[in-house]
């Protein structure tokens, strides 16, 4: 087995395009998960037992079934009931919805970690509910949420490889295509691995930055 640099340079442009799609899928997936996760977390505090029960079921369902299956359902089954989504959109929705269940738990844990006495004291100085959330609860909860949120985002980056199975042309799908054409897998797969490594390192550094920013809230 030999390593062919010329071959490497020949497929680099297409691989970089794949890397871009991977990053895009991760970022869009993270945004969806952050928003939907917040909705799930807040709804989980509902006064109505029925709503709380439904939310608990949805979260359990999303965490208890494989992302791969969820992606297949969105991409292959939903068209049967008339919902046809482009591959990339189906992929990021799948990623985002799947991870929203985990992020909901992160939000809840962060909020629950704030002492009950903080609510009492805030009420005693007559703050409204909105002011309590804004000035007392969230500034204490968010710094605790950022590290786990970042870890899930990095998890999403790696799991976005699954999008290759529903024909999203991200990093892994590109490597497979190159291999199928040329019968050489060593160089493309090695480069895919290195690309993921580079991306996770960059994401980790960004996360550190975000953690430091969040600490400033305290």
């Amino acid at each position, binding site marked *: 087995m030999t390593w062919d640099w010329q071959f490497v340079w020949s497929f680099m442009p297409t691989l970089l395009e794949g890397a871009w799609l991977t990053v895009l899928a991760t970022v869009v997936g993270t945004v969806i998960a952050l928003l939907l996760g917040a909705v799930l977390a807040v709804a989980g505090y509902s006064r109505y037992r029925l709503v709380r029960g439904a939310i608990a079921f949805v979260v359990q369902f999303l965490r208890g079934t494989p992302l791969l299956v969820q992606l297949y359902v969105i991409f292959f089954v939903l068209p049967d009931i008339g919902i046809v989504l482009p591959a990339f959109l189906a992929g990021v929705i799948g990623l985002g919805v799947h991870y929203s269940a985990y992020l909901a738990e992160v939000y809840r844990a962060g909020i629950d970690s704030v002492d009950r*006495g*903080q609510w009492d*004291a805030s*009420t*005693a100085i007559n*703050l409204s509910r909105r002011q309590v959330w804004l000035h007392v609860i969230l500034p204490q909860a968010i710094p605790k949420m950022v590290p786990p949120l970042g870890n899930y985002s990095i998890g999403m980056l790696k799991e976005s490889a699954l999008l290759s199975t529903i024909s999203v042309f991200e990093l892994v799908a590109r490597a497979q295509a190159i291999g199928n054409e040329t019968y050489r897998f060593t160089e493309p797969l090695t480069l895919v691995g290195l690309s993921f490594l580079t991306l996770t390192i960059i994401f980790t550094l960004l996360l550190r930055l975000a953690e430091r920013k969040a600490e400033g809230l305290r």
Partner: protein
Amino acid sequence: MTRLQTPCIEFHDVSKRYGDLQVLNGVSFQARPGEKLSLIGPSGSGKTTILRVLMTLESIDGGTVRIEGEPLRVPGEQQRLSRSAERGLQRIRGKVGMVFQHFNLFPHMDVLRNITLGPMLTQGVSRDEAEAQALRYLDMVGLADKARSRPSQLSGGQKQRVAIARSLALKPKIMLFDEVTSALDPELVDEVLAVMRTLARETDMTMLLVTHAMNFARDFSDRVLFFERGRILEEGPPQQIFSEPREERTRTFLRKILASGQDL
């Protein structure tokens, strides 16, 4: 009824239960404006619940509570208030301040901000004014030099004095003290009690004190209420309650407290 006769606080036949536990079982009492009341009794007898009801932290299941003649209506867990009811509740709540056993300072803000937050957000006081005022209250509790400290940098006694300043900054008519020295090391108790003594002397706030510090309750209060199992078993001036209680139960309780050395 003339204004002078309106009690500052009025409980009439108030009851409250948590599940099977009847925490308040037909409690009635009144406090005149400026009166200092001590609530004593075994733990779980309902003293703290009285304060929490007044601070609108708990709803009640029966009876009525009035503050300066206005009925207090706190919604239960499953209820939601209309906008105007919420505003009404906030207005009444503004008359009441509370100091907690565990201080409950905001750990992510410095001492000054802890004190200015309420006036700035709920009374529309400007930052400059709120800070000037906060410094005056800090000076009053002997902590003017700690304005820029974080709560985590303070001792328990200092934290509690900041908590008192935080309540005072909203200029309440009623101050509630919930076992404010119970979580403190013994040598830090006096500095907090000294501040409360000054307050009792120099202000005309109505004060309710839940405490196990019997000597302090004796000096501090105009009247003592002895609670047992969600009821007021006995009440009277401190000399009478502490020296010649009518009820056997009160006597046993006081003897136990004194023997345990809890009375700091």
